[in-house]
């Protein structure tokens, strides 16, 4: 602690936790690989219109099922459309659905979870039983049911995807809160006349958010997978809007003759889910200061 005390005493600005966490994360090569991959994918998604060599709707029947070549890096699909361009543009749908749906379910889950965890009592009982019922339905089936009821399309799919994630977030946050609610610093906060909302915002949430951050990053990967699955079976996003799952589905009938229609969308899905999982693992280690040797 000698070295640290020197640095601590010389500190002139508040060294936020964030920087300390980032520093720990930087040391984890796997996590950094995941992070860079995600950043690259996001950049690609944003600049897709500029990066794509062809328009994603441009059809060229003479190139139907064309194999990968220099002019078409990943080949063409059943309507002669360039797969590479469709993949680049499809990143938008997949990433945005995954991120937005997960953030939405997290936001709702945090509000419910903190109220339920801090106040307890009958609200706790009622809400948890309702969530038990929701969780009893397998996630995929739930998403299918809601998606079928609402119809396909971007926003409807996001709704379908986010509802399934709420119970887990609530449970996670509630568990976190229950474990720190009886800590002495919470008692101390009440003793210095902290209002209940302030106790939740300043004392409870910052200390219970760590498992949540990990579950969010892993959740994004999972949500992307579910979105792809919905599109695969005909719900969710449909052509001509490119979406990786839908592209996978379109290629399934010719998989033996023209595997490139399935392989490249499949690889994309796999890479993005893997990247989020690697980042999530690394974040979990970096966020837990007690793991430090």
């Amino acid at each position: 602690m000698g070295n640290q005390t020197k640095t601590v005493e010389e500190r002139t600005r508040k060294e936020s936790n964030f920087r300390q966490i980032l520093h720990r994360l930087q040391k984890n090569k796997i996590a950094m690989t995941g992070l860079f991959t995600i950043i690259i994918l996001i950049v690609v998604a944003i600049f897709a219109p500029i990066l794509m060599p062809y328009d994603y709707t441009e059809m060229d029947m003479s190139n139907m099922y064309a194999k990968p070549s220099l002019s078409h890096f990943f080949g063409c699909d059943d309507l002669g459309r360039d797969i590479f361009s469709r993949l680049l543009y499809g990143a938008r749908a997949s990433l945005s659905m995954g991120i937005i749906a997960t953030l939405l379910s997290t936001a709702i889950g945090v509000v419910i979870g903190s109220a339920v965890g801090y106040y307890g009592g009958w609200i706790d009982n009622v809400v948890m039983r309702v969530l038990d019922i929701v969780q009893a339905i397998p996630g995929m089936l739930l998403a299918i049911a809601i998606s079928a009821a609402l119809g396909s399309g971007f926003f409807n799919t996001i709704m379908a995807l986010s509802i399934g994630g709420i119970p887990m977030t609530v449970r996670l946050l509630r568990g976190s809160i229950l474990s720190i609610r009886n800590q002495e610093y919470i008692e101390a906060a009440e003793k210095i006349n902290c209002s209940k909302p302030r106790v939740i915002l300043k004392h409870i949430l910052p200390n219970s958010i760590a498992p949540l951050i990990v579950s969010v990053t892993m959740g994004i990967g999972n949500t992307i997978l579910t979105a792809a699955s919905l599109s695969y079976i005909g719900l969710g996003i449909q052509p001509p809007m490119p979406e990786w799952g839908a592209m996978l589905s379109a290629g399934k009938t010719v998989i033996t003759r023209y595997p490139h229609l399935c392989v490249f969308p499949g690889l994309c899905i796999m890479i993005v889910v893997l990247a989020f999982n690697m980042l999530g693992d690394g974040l979990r280690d970096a966020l837990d200061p007690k793991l430090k040797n």
Partner: protein
Amino acid sequence: MQTTKQKETSFLSVKNLSVEYTSDDEVIHAVNHVSFDLQKGKTFGLVGETGAGKTTIAKAILRILPQPPARIKSGEIFFEGEELLGLTEEKMRKIRGNRISMIFQDPMTALNPIMRVGTQIAEAVRLHENCSRVQSVEKAIEMLEMVGIPGERQREFPHQFSGGMKQRVVIAMALACNPHLLLADEPTTALDVTIQAQVLDMINELKRKNNTSMIMITHDLGVVAQACDDVAVVYAGEIVELGTKEQIFTAPSHPYTLGLFGSLPDIHSDSQRLYPIEGLPPDPSNLPQGCSFHPRCPYATRACGDRQAALADLGDRHLCRCINLEQIQKGGKKP
């Protein structure tokens, strides 16, 4: 000081032990050139505060230090003639739990919560002695009775016992195989004072009956006075003073030892003010130059920061690591 012959026949002889821990960017010098001897049937006290390195010494003897991040940099440990650090893991396993046993500080975490206590003790017995399951359970019951717990309770689980009783179970387990050497790491710190008294009495009684030798790690000088024969005061991984209990308590010499005695609240004293040792224990990854204690020492001189003092013999094998001893003793004790 000791002849080679004496070295070999000493019950336990630790020579020049140094242990360090490496984490990402720093090296922690946990134990620095520690040497001491223990005679058979005696209790040796290792006194010092948190982080002084006492537990590391005990774990090094038992060879249960996780390597990495720990690393035994140097040293030899002779136990009943055998050098422990050079033994194979297989040979060491025969000694651990059998001839050398350890009691850890926290009884809450030392017992397996999903195993009955009788089973845990019996398991230890079966590992080291050739006996049947029935015989091992009988031995377990015998051990429980010896520590004052009714034998029928062997079928109960740890959570059904209070803190003091859990610690007694831990002691029963440690003594089940009649170890020659018992390492006790703050065995009573987590206990209430009346229970602590009971447990200490019991340990002393068992020790006497079986002629067990013991190393008692503690920060409580009262416990040392009650239970130990010889004492080493440990600071920043080094022994700064070593001697018999009488020598340390009647003639404490090292400034740290003096400081420890001075900062103790004493129920017999009327004084209103305590005299704490100034400053904080040093950072083991960044130890001061020269004497580790000199930044906090009221008697420090410039020379203290230059070189490490060697252990000087004050007479009758009372050792002390301080270059200013004469001046301190002449000038009388500082309040």
